[in-house]
């Protein structure tokens, strides 16, 4: 009997550790022999905490939304008596969440114990490294990557083989391999999940890249905000060294490669390659002009190849199954699969990996189960602060690099935030500009000042002080910021504004001309009111109101005194009778 507990960051946030403790307590107090294992995130974050009970015949039962109380019942019935508690098991409907996917980068996430190298090895781990060391020349490895058509999963979608080849041909030594795990895009968490759930696949991918380009040292530049990922990477590196998959003379093939972790210090711009290198060198993370590209002059001025976490996680699979098998998946120009972090107003939020070319609609409705509370979808945001909002009318767009770019958004690292009719698109644009304004490193004037000016305009529109000329001004600034910035941050910062202006201009106009927020989100343009017909005079809103501005007495409908109302929304949230209205 084996019990597996999903303990990614999201599983832990949902109470996974308490469930684990409860399981360990049950095992101890009952004195039975049950193997308790930890696993990474399976991607069904909306069902966490999740545990798997595997009996001696290997039958796997998945329990979802587990609490310590349910753990006790599972032990009483399932583990002691073999009786499955179907009321807590995963619903058939939720199974389609996994069945609709094709998992390559996430092949081991949630399946193996990320802290056990043996489980990784059992699932063909480090066999790809063995294959390249024993059977392939570096040129053949690069050729295989070329056949696979793998493109960078961090955002820009640059062909991986091309970068490897450039670093291989570059003069200078030593050379370096860097894994970009500075996942700063708000709304994307696939890199965290891969690092937490399957760290060895990234290490193996890096070692293969090291062999291909002729590097002996690798760095993983990982966000300091991901403490669990760092911890699991440290364990994985130590295990790989002990087994001889990292270090000197790997597998007796004369190839040396080791990996160091560098914790980032919290700067979104460090996702940009040259800024990342500056940060690795201990400097402020400011981008520089390219060329020279990092492949020629990177870390410490030496040839450096930088790939994203998800890109590396794909590499061992490609080597083992062949580039052709990978290229058979996806569309003409976008091969393989892509991991998306599905979140926002979607029913089943989590990580999904789908073949390139699937439509946005299928991802959101077939896999994601549609919109929360069955509201109407308004848009989906792809690519984070560098991306854009794709309206409902374009949901048939297939997910591949070129098609997404045509809509004005970008694939980005794969954050997919679903928005319903209660999301204000002007506020969304303001939100992203606020982010890029804070994260601009300050080097280029257009980015440093342009984002600030754009933000000011958006803020004034949200506050009902917008003028008709503002939209033109926004568009003009957007073009200048794009053109006047050195790196991807500034070049893409106006995208959220441009796409919302393109698809949701009417919302901007409603804010400016009618002083109304159609989504009822912008505080300055809304007012709260209690519907006297629906009010049951329970007084809960008045008690909860932080500024004591709700008056009333038993038997009389309550009333909000608007002068003092801070529009915090507390009354709306606590009212059990739906009597609070926003207008």
């Amino acid at each position, binding site marked *: 009997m084996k019990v597996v507990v999903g303990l990614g*960051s*999201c599983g*832990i*946030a*949902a109470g996974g550790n308490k469930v684990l403790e409860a399981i360990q307590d049950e095992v101890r107090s009952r004195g039975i022999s049950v193997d308790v294992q930890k696993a990474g995130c399976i991607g069904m*974050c*909306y069902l*966490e905490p999740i545990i798997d009970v595997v009996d001696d015949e290997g039958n796997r039962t998945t329990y979802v939304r587990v609490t310590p109380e349910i753990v006790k019942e599972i032990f009483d019935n399932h583990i002691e008596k073999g009786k499955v508690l179907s009321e807590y098991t995963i619903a058939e409907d939720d199974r389609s969440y996994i069945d609709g996917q094709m998992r390559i980068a996430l092949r081991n996430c949630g399946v193996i114990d990320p802290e056990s190298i043996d489980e990784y090895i059992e699932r063909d781990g480090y066999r790809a490294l063995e294959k390249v060391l024993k059977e392939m020349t570096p040129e053949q490895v690069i050729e295989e990557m070329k056949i696979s058509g793998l493109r960078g999963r961090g955002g820009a979608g640059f062909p991986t083989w091309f970068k490897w080849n450039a670093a291989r041909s570059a003069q200078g030594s030593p050379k370096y391999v860097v894994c970009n795990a500075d996942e*700063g*895009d*708000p*709304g*994307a*968490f696939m890199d*965290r999940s891969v690092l937490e759930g399957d760290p060895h696949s990234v290490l193996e991918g890096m070692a293969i890249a090291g062999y291909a380009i002729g590097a002996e040292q690798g760095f993983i530049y990982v966000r*300091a*905000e*991901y*403490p669990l990922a760092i911890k699991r990477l440290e364990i994985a590196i130590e295990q790989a060294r002990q087994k001889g998959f990292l270090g000197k003379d790997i597998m007796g093939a004369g190839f040396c490669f080791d990996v160091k972790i*560098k*914790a*980032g*210090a*919290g*700067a*979104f711009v460090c996702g940009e390659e040259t800024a990342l290198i500056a*940060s*690795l*060198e*201990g*400097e*402020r*993370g400011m981008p520089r002009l390219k060329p020279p590209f990092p492949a020629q002059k990177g870390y*410490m001025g030496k040839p450096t190849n930088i790939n994203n976490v998800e890109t590396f996680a794909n590499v061992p699979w490609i080597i083992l199954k062949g580039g052709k098998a990978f290229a058979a998946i996806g569309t003409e120009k976008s091969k393989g699969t892509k991991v998306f*972090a*599905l*979140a*926002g*107003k979607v029913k089943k*939020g*989590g990580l999904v990996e789908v073949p390139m070319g699937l439509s946005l609609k299928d991802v959101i409705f077939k896999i994601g189960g549609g919109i929360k509370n069955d509201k109407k979808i308004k848009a989906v*945001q792809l690519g*984070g602060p560098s991306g854009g909002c794709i309206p409902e009318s374009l949901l048939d767009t297939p997910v591949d690099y070129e098609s997404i770019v045509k809509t004005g958004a970008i694939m980005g690292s794969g*954050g997919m*935030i679903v*928005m319903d009719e209660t*999301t204000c698109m002007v506020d*969304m644009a303001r*939100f*992203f500009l606020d*982010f890029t304004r804070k*994260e601009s*490193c300050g080097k280029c004037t257009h980015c440093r000042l342009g984002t600030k000016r754009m933000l000011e305009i958006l803020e004034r529109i949200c506050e009902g002080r917008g003028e008709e000329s503002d939209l033109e001004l926004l568009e003009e600034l957007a073009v200048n910021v794009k053109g006047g910035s050195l790196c991807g941050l500034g070049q893409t910062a106006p995208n959220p504004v441009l796409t919302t202006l393109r698809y949701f201009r009417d919302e901007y106009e409603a804010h400016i001309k009618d002083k109304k927020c159609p989504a009822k989100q912008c505080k300055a343009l809304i007012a709260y009111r209690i519907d006297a017909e629906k009010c049951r005079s329970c007084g809960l809103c008045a008690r909860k109101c*932080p500024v004591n501005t709700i008056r009333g007495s038993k038997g009389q409908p309550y009333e909000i005194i608007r002068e003092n109302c*801070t529009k*915090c*929304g*507390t009354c709306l*949230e*606590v009212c059990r009778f739906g009597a609070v209205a926003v207008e």
Partner: protein
Amino acid sequence: MFCCIGEEHGIEKNFPDEEVDLAVLEPVLKEYRGIPGSLITVLQKAQDVYGYLPRRALYHIAREIGVKPAKVFGVATFYAQFRLKPVGKHLIMVCHGTACHVNGAELITSALCDELNIKDGETTADGLFTLQNVACLGCCSLAPVMMIDGEAYGKLTPDKARDVIRDIYRRETGK
């Protein structure tokens, strides 16, 4: 310290100049002295030691690893992770990533501000809590999320967030 036009530098005016024990930094400095490119790591470890980066420690680091104070201050103020002021015993990080924003992170922050009677970035008078809005904690499916002392709390409502704080407060003060 004054600059040439007789005004106090921003950093010196805005951040406290507290007496700190510089000897506790020695193990860190010993490990990284002479290794190029390790300034960020040294600052991260120094922050682990003190809980923030005291002004005197920054000058000390600059002297000891042989870089200009300007560069140390430059790096220390560039990255969001570094703090130049002491923080409370419990650091509350409220996620303001896209998913959390869409799901009402603003309401969580305003509830916490109200509960603790501080603003974003401030510390309570009793030194127990510091409130900080952060970009993204990567737990987007559980939005809105906050993290306190490394532990994440998901699917928050303003009331739930208040309860978490009250629990910690009760544990700390017995009240």
